[in-house]
């Protein structure tokens, strides 16, 4: 999908407060959504309803864990220089790999960028080799060497 075609989803005040407050430190009590509602002054049902809504509209990928790289498996950022007329076909081939979780076209000679995550370094290397072989295009392997700072999620300023 072209980035320009992704529509901004209108958010209400509760949506915004959920996004501001709970990209990290989700309550670890038996009823976390009720606790979130209590903190925001709404019921658990309202919190669940808004989260369902955000998920349906594509704003919310999931309520879940972001795992630190290389702690539970291996991952890499891969890049390819794909002739423009083959971009759709190669992106489809890359998307079809279950180990690929992000895949974007970017403005550069290296125009296809994707993240490969698997149980081991060897398994990641196999996926890259397979994509290179099937597409006939070299794949650059750019694994993370060091992450700086703490992942706080995303701090939007609402327009």
């Amino acid at each position, binding site marked *: 999908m072209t980035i320009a075609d992704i529509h901004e989803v209108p958010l209400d005040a509760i949506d915004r407060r959920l996004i501001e407050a709970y990209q990290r430190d989700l309550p670890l009590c038996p009823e976390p959504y009720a606790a979130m509602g209590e903190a925001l002054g709404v019921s658990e049902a309202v919190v669940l309803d808004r989260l369902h809504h955000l998920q349906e509209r594509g704003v919310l990928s999931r309520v879940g864990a972001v795992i630190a790289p290389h702690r539970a498996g291996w991952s890499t950022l891969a890049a390819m220089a794909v002739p423009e007329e083959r971009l759709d076909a190669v992106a489809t081939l890359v998307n079809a790999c279950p180990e690929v979780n992000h895949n974007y076209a*970017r403005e550069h000679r290296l125009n296809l960028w*994707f993240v490969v995550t698997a149980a081991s370094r060897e398994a990641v290397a196999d996926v890259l080799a397979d994509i290179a072989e099937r597409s006939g295009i070299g794949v650059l392997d750019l694994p993370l060497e060091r992450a700086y700072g703490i992942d706080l999620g995303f701090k939007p300023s609402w327009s």
Partner: protein
Amino acid sequence: MELTPADRRLLDALEGGLPLVSRPYAVLGERAGLDEAEVTRRLAALQAAGVVKRLGLVVRHHEIGYRANAMTVMDVPDDQVDAVGERLTRAADVTLCYRRPRRLPDWPYNLFAMVHGREREAVLARIDELLAEHGLADLPHAVLFSTRRFKQRGARYRAEAA
């Protein structure tokens, strides 16, 4: 922290996300073969150890109007790259900052910073400002905006492919 088999089962069970029900940790526990209290105890420990960077809402930037997504890459001398990375990551509009290997001659850059904004021009101006503030303007750098999104979802660590 060494992950136990129970931690791994728990992280596997979490891959699709926490269910949107009253007692999500109990459901997670059923999937992982752990009771609810053990699930929350282990999740707290995994966060404290840095294995789980964060637990919460994972939001797609584009859908909340942040459509200008710039992967900003720089070629920083090896003896300075860690100091520059630590400084850049504190800037409010830098969401992630990573060091990666160069792959010469195809790829000369070793520092990656993600900068998100609503409008392309504003993001480019902000990147120029950041580079100037940190004395990086003269280093080789490039800004790679995303133009198309083919896939975005959470990572899956289990070997699912044949």
